[in-house]
């Protein structure tokens, strides 16, 4: 065992010395590897996030109830009371463990200036459901969660209170504590005045441009419109965008889908019941070709280029060291040992460069740059996931292995007699 370790250590020393011998070439190979691993990391980060969003979970599933035939979906508020019970009629019917109603209220701060800075889009819902039913907010740290809970409490007590994401606040050039008057666009004629009571915590990065309000405020305004104008608001009969339910597992999801689908309560309009993953997947269908291109054209082409860069560097290195390899063989190194040395050299450069590149990207993009600004669908920024460190290692090592396998085989088959006969 000890002798094996000793042999490995001896090989490791030779590999490190070989890598250090031509620092210029090692540096260029590493830099080439790092830049290309960076591209792969960026591309895979986007794809992995999308895959995660569209994958079907086995437990703790969210279910979206939307209008079946129309988009954007509009459901009557009267649907909510039965939908939040999962349209359960019999005692043994499935009941969701949690729910949230979503309405969208968008409008302009100054209706005469339709610009991005002037536009605000708010998600209306039951305030107490915000921390549990909106993605990732249940993962906030204790301090951030306490802050969010305080905001929720205030939204419950003060209907015109709203929470606006820090980036949206910056875009609008507003501060916490200010009041804004919004002229309704989706609900034309419903102009609401809000008090900005807080922003989303920095840790809730995906909510940097999101704003939330109490659904009761909008419903009350629609009711007031009806009284004042002696007719309901054109959008007032169906203000709800969708209802989100939470169920324990897939079996419950299937039972719930059947319950809602069979219910006579939802006919005009008819409703669609689907898992959140499936709904997001449908929304992203329009981007399918772009994701296909990223996954099957860009990613593989970069990996292939990376292998080429490494293959080139290692094959040059092997060609230059044919005499040295012959000498090693004279000294007793077997063909497998020589191959191991060449492979080890490439793997060392590839692995270290890959890990360094992915790790650097993780730190720079997540901690300093605040994500990759690539607005696609409703996702504004993408972050490098934790597993990217493994990608860096795997991509670096994998492409190094593929790139150096032929040069390593060529080194293995160097014939001592051929090399020395040429010298002679």
């Amino acid at each position, binding site marked *: 065992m000890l002798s094996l370790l000793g042999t490995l250590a001896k090989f490791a020393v030779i590999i490190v010395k070989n890598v250090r011998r031509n620092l210029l070439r090692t540096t260029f190979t590493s*830099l080439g590897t790092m830049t290309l691993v960076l591209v792969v990391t960026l591309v895979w980060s986007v794809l992995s996030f999308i895959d995660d969003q569209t994958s079907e979970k086995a437990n703790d599933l969210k279910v979206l109830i939307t209008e079946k035939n129309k988009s954007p979906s509009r459901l009557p508020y009267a649907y909510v009371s039965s939908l939040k019970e999962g349209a359960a009629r019999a005692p043994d019917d499935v009941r969701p463990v949690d729910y949230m109603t979503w309405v969208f209220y968008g409008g302009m701060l100054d209706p005469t200036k339709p610009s991005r800075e002037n536009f605000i889009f708010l998600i209306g819902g039951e305030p107490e459901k915000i921390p549990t039913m909106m993605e990732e907010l249940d993962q906030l740290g204790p301090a951030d969660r306490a802050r969010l809970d305080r905001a929720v409490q205030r939204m419950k007590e003060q209907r015109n209170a709203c929470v606006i994401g820090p980036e949206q606040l910056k875009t609008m050039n507003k501060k916490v504590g200010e009041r804004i008057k919004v002229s309704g666009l989706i609900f034309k004629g419903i102009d609401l005045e809000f008090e900005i009571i807080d922003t989303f915590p920095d840790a809730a990065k995906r909510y940097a441009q999101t704003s939330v309000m109490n659904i009761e405020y909008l419903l009350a305004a629609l009711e007031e419109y009806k009284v004042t104008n002696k007719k309901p608001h054109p959008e007032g009969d169906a203000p709800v965008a969708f209802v989100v339910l939470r169920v324990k597992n897939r079996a419950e999801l299937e039972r719930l889908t059947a319950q809602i689908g069979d219910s006579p309560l939802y006919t005009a309009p008819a409703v669609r019941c689907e898992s959140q993953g499936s709904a997001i997947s449908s929304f992203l269908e329009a*981007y399918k070709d772009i994701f296909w291109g990223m996954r099957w054209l860009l990613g593989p082409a970069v990996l292939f280029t990376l292998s080429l860069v490494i293959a080139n560097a290692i094959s040059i290195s092997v060609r230059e060291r044919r005499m040295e390899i012959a000498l090693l063989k004279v000294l007793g190194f077997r063909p497998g040992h020589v191959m191991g040395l060449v492979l080890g050299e490439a793997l060392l450069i590839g692995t270290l460069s890959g890990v360094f590149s992915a790790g650097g990207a993780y730190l720079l993009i997540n901690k300093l740059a605040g994500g990759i600004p690539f607005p696609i669908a409703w996702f504004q920024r993408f972050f490098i996931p934790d597993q990217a460190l493994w990608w860096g290692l795997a991509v670096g090592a994998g492409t190094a292995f593929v790139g150096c396998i032929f040069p390593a085989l060529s080194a293995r088959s160097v014939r001592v007699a051929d090399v020395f006969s040429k010298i002679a």
Partner: protein
Amino acid sequence: MRHWLSGLCMLLALSSVARGEINIGDKGGITYSVSSSKTPQVVDDENEIVITADAKRLEIKFKAGRLVYDGKDCGTIKTGDRVAIEPDGKITVNDESRPVTGLVAAWRFFVKHWREFLYGSLAAALALMVLLSLIGKVPVSYNVRNLFVRWKTTVMTALAFTLVVALMTVMMAFVNGMYTLTESSGQLGNVMILSSGSNDEGFSNLAFDDVGNVEKMEGIQPYGNDKRLASKEVFVMGNQTIPVGPGQKPKRRFVQIRGIEDPVVAALVHALSLKPGGQWFSEAGVEEVSGDKASTQNLIQAVIGNGLAAEMGSDRAGGKPLTVGDTFPLADRTWKIAGVLDSSGSTFDSEIWVKRQIAGEQFGKPASYTSIVVRAAGEKEAIKLADKVKASKETALNALTEKQYYSNMAETSKQFLYAIVVVAMVMAAGGVFGVMNTMFAAISQRSKDIGVLRIMGYQRRQILISFLLESLVLALIGGLVGCAAGMLADGWTARSIISGGGGAKFVVLRLVVSKEILAAGLLLSLFMGMLGGFFPAISAMRLRALESLR
């Protein structure tokens, strides 16, 4: 893009004359600097920048061509003009005595003449190669022979160039396809009338009462004896369930439906026609299919965009595009295709056109339009008409030229363009390191050759030129093959979304590999070759003859 850049230039020009306390900030990517005792409030979008400082208001409208300062109309300006405000409030436009800073002027010039720069740079790079081979005196055949001798390395290095260039070409073709789509979707003389505050037909809601007599406004082109070229439309989105195999996740697609009052007028306004064999839907918009009492049903007559017909056809066995007479399910009804729009290359390619009343009733807009598209005599008349509609006191409407509407839709294209530029640059950097590696190795292998060349009387600069040329030849070969490979993507179709102004449209676009994209690809390749070859060539130049022969 150009408007933003012009805005930046204008504001920088403005700052160069501002005195007193200067406030500098950044808003929406535009850096501004205004003389003011308070922090200026800036609101900007693609067409307009409004700065309010010390209660004074500077409003720059690029498209409308109006400049308003301190509440006073200061006349017409156009994109690219330089506006300066003197401390005494005097306005000067394009005052040549106030030159903009070198960097800004250079950038403005570049944006204006980017095509000339692109072709000029490519021509210069190719001319440089010819010049180097002429003045270098080291025979080009020596370098080319060397490339053949170590052919494996040559192929691998050239392949790296090829991949980078081919990828960039495909990605740029996608963005170009998006731009082409948005550019070809709007008619120069068309004006889109939307509800007040809406910039997109998806958000617009024009109740019948709100429209008034807008279609009878002066400036709208007549059609026939008593009609005008005004198309009243309702634009809605439906969900269509896509058939999937057993055990697969349920799927659906979003389908854009445009309800129109008069298909003939709409076709004239949008300059679209039907493919041979098709016809517009009837006045009722439905077709009764007789059978026994139970099976008699009304099929909705629809005209479908060419791209959507192909996409929907992919659901069927065989995958052939839908055609006249085919039916498809949507919103619990059966729809029958009466005609296929010859709409390739426009956003209408991904739409279904039906009778307005049917679209409205099926999709929750029974008593409203989303837009009225009217035709003016030309581009200038369209701008005037849009201004007139907005200024009308009878109605509260928003209006913009159709060209402007679709130009706003290019927001997504910009985002993709930026992303592609970043990816291409990073990949190019990786390629440059690969080339450097190869060239340094080539020099190391041929140090004896270099020694012999030096002893034969070749000067250091000739050695430098020789190796630089070798790298450029590699890049040229790789780049040309990459461009050829990238050209294969021309005409590919891809689904995407174009968005801007708050709205979005699902589209099927066609990738367009243009001359500019090929030139940019080749230039990138030569740039990589130049950068990757330069430092190794310098190291070759510095080799001493005797030392290299040892």
